[in-house]
């Protein structure tokens, strides 16, 4: 870009930096700013002459990497993820917890009613059992809804997993030594407690040991 010569500037251009002509106080004018910029550029040019070409290449590489990272981040669709998917997944899981709890309570109440029903009057006893069995069937319908909700959560997890992995691959940022590093101290403490107290949680069918295997250990 060609720089304007200070002498070529008209009086109108000599407006103060604050845009206020009437105060009469001495303020930094646009000319002063341009003049200082000229000086700065000149000194910068002389400083840059001393830079090695390889440093320039390094800066170019860093700039390219930043651009690539920005592109990858935009591909992640984080804007769509944060306000919608994760909170929605949390709500779905809470709904599953609520539905299963409600259904379990209803089933248990029915079972307890049957268990304590008085069999001395066969007709009444029969009605109590029939009514409660119907209510148990109704309560079991929670499974269909919770199944659908969990499918949505699984879909969200897959969405996140796919993008995070793709992001890590693109940036070649996988470092095996960082795999067990924790996000913060609280997470580290929780992980340590889980490890020390063997809090593994439920295992999948083909991973955990069966009751028969356990019985053999106690035989």
């Amino acid at each position, binding site marked *: 870009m060609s720089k304007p010569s200070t002498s070529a500037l008209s009086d109108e251009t000599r407006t103060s930096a604050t845009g206020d002509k009437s105060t009469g106080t001495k303020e930094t004018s646009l000319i002063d700013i341009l003049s200082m910029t000229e000086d700065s550029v000149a000194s910068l040019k002389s400083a840059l002459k001393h830079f090695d070409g390889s440093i320039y290449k390094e800066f170019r590489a860093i700039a390219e990497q930043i651009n690539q990272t920005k592109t990858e981040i935009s591909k992640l669709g984080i804007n769509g993820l944060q306000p919608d998917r994760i909170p929605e997944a949390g709500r779905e899981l809470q709904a599953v917890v609520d539905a299963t709890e409600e259904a379990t309570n209803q089933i*248990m109440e029915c079972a307890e009613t049957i268990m304590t029903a008085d069999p001395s009057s066969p007709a009444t006893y029969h009605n109590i059992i029939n009514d409660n069995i119907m209510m148990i069937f109704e309560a079991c319908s929670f499974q269909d809804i919770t199944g659908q909700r969990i499918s949505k959560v699984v879909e969200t997890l897959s969405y996140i997993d796919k993008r995070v992995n793709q992001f890590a691959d693109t940036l070649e940022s996988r470092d095996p030594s960082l795999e067990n590093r924790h996000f913060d101290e609280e997470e580290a403490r929780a992980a340590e407690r889980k490890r020390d107290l063997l*809090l*593994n*949680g*439920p295992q999948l069918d083909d991973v955990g*040991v069966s009751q028969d295997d*356990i019985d053999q250990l106690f035989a």
Partner: protein
Amino acid sequence: MAVDLSMPVLVVDDYKTMIRIIRNLLKQLGFNDVDDAADGTEAFEKLQKKQYGLVISDWNMEPMTGYELLKQVRSDETLGKTPFIMVTAESKTENVIAAKKAGVSNYIVKPFNAQTLQSKIAAVFGD
């Protein structure tokens, strides 16, 4: 030794539903003196106040786990020999081995049925 159905049983679980299930199963098996606690700390306090014939405990609880409760019970001079059954979803081999080393009387993996509970209680009391 026969199972004494009149003995007090302490059920320890942080899920009220699970306590309700085990309580009902025990009731079906003939046990009527059943108390409950929501974690290891509460259970240990109850164990010090009342003599229980059997403890049935979950593993994964806060702040004191069933595993910690087991170790605390076993290291206590008075409570050390209390029969202790772990009823848990923790089904890794390392959990079972750790519990056995800590002195657990028997180990039941959730989900379980009344027959399993009955057979493990019977096994603990040598029936």
